[in-house]
């Protein structure tokens, strides 16, 4: 499923455009450095070093933070030394594909607290089938409902594990 448009073939640079690997490496290294920095700062807050009754809470995480910062520094340096363009992290077409999956997934996760997990799952499955599988809604909607019902029977009835429920389940008396 290459996203290369016919009119762009031949201009390799355009066809493979996307965030560069170098930029992503740098960004990740910086983010991990920040995570290490946060760990160090918080460890200083709770106290590090030797207390009255042994090592304080922050001691171990503090040194982990130090090592994380140093290792990320190493990654940052090697990313900065990548002078030549060794390719892109992902092409724009690929990123668009990832986004078309990630965005509905994020919406799904965001809606679970309100709609419960069963209704949202049915919608997610039906949406995926129509959007990516080119199914008609006539087959997609029953399929989504069937999957949800199966999950409901499995978890609520068989394993007795309650999952998040929304207004529809309440209306049905569960």
């Amino acid at each position: 499923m290459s996203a290369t448009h016919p009119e762009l073939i031949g201009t390799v640079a355009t066809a493979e455009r996307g965030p560069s690997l170098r930029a992503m490496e740098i960004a990740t290294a910086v983010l991990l450095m920040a995570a290490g920095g946060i760990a160090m700062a918080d460890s200083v807050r709770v106290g590090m070093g030797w207390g009255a009754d042994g090592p304080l809470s922050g001691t171990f995480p503090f040194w982990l933070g130090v090592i994380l910062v140093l290792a990320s520094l190493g990654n940052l340096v090697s990313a900065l030394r990548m002078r030549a363009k060794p390719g892109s992290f992902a092409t724009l077409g690929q990123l668009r594909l990832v986004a078309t999956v990630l965005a509905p997934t994020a919406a799904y996760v965001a809606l679970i607290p309100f709609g419960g997990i069963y209704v949202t799952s049915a919608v997610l499955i039906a949406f995926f089938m129509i959007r990516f599988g080119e199914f008609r809604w006539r087959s997609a909607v029953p399929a989504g409902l069937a999957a949800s019902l199966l999950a409901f029977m499995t978890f609520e009835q068989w394993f007795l594990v309650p999952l998040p429920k929304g207004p529809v389940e309440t209306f049905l008396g569960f």
Partner: protein
Amino acid sequence: MLEDLAALGSGFAVALQPQNIALMVAGIVLGVLIGVLPGLGGANGIAILLPLTFALPPVSAIILLSCIYWGALFGGAITSVLFNIPGEPWSVATTFDGYPMAQQGKAGEALTAAFTSSFVGALVAVVMITFLAPLVAEFALKFGPPEFFAVMFLSFACFVGLSRGSPFKAVAAMMFGFILAGVGMDGVTGQMRMTFGSIELMRGIDFLVVVIGLFGLSEILVSIEEGLRFKGQRAVITLKTVLRTWAELPRHWWLFIRSSVIGCWMGITPAGATPASFMSYGVARRMSKDPNGFGKGKVEGVVAPETAAHAAGTSALLPMLSLGVPGSPTAAVLLGGLIMWGLQPGPMLFVEQKDFVWGLIASMYLGNVVGLVIVLACVPWFAAILRVPFSIIAAVILMVCAIGAYTVNSSEFDIVLMLVFGVIGYVMKKLDYPLAPLVLALVLGDRTEEAFRQSLLLSEGSMGVFFSNWLVGGIMTAGLAVLFYPLIGRVLRALSPRAAAA
């Protein structure tokens, strides 16, 4: 030794209970399914099912979950051979020769060879566990906190020193895992660490949720990006194919032995099944009389990686059982299960939980026999799953991941966390950050810190405690040597041409 055999006998009595046999079959079938489906693998499949096993006695639960592991190991081969899609990372090397064999119409032979090799590799590893694990555990009974810290240090050093990728990335991933493990309440002092006032974070970050995100959701994202089209070869395995392939396989006995040894070694040191399969494939090609035939459908090219991968996957349970230090992400999830079921992992397990340990070991023998029969008989059905459109599979897997993340603590926040770690995992995979050290650090973080603190308490704050006797000093020195192995190697290489010139 005799004592162990008697214990193994009673283990078989436990594993052969009807309920446990049923769980074994269910586990294998589920495991093969998980191995076949993209986005579900041994580690996150087990992570999703773990919260559902509380109702079972621990030994039944571990039999179910470990059989899912064996099933996933078998299942990876099916997609590799028939679809040229490695269902699991450790079956990448199997695609090199397995798929060409299927294209030549020898799919049945390739699959029979793959399953049989998996079985042999696992069997060798289980025999090794049977005899070695009790000895290691007995030896480890002498360990105090400094020695445990040293063992963990050694296994984490292995990730850095023995990995093929950037050592800095391995260290960064590992430290990120350790820091995540530290989030929440400190069990010793009761202080809140890195929670920033968030109530959700006070409970800590559950490794199961992280595993589901890192290995499940991110896998879906990577698969989507590659634009999945399942176009596979068909295979029917007849008894005739099986017997003919089996008649040929004994000729490769030396390959089996060598690949099993590579697998066992790589499984005990936490290098894992994936590098083991690549290494075994590489060695097989280098030592073959016909190295150019590899990659074009040579049965040796299927036997070598599959034997090693299964041997490694199985022997990863040896350090998990005897020391409480898992050798692979999946073993780490199983170890997390032990803790959740209220068992204390470590050498005492062999003393206090004899039934559990030997029941598990016996189930490894039985589970692999059951697994071999099931996969040989049911390949067409399992392969049919990949003919279900990806749009349905992906959506159902997303639902399963969300439910799995929720059931860990009945928390909706965990579903969000799973999503976040899915994206983190996607970026890390694309940038070649290894995920295994992150997961192991997250699982072992608390126990590593505890060992570290107790050691320092013993010595009243002196780091000298980690070199205070030959045992702990030896393990620490080995760890340091492995850790700086890439550096030492570079220095030696830099020196050697000069030495040659002189």
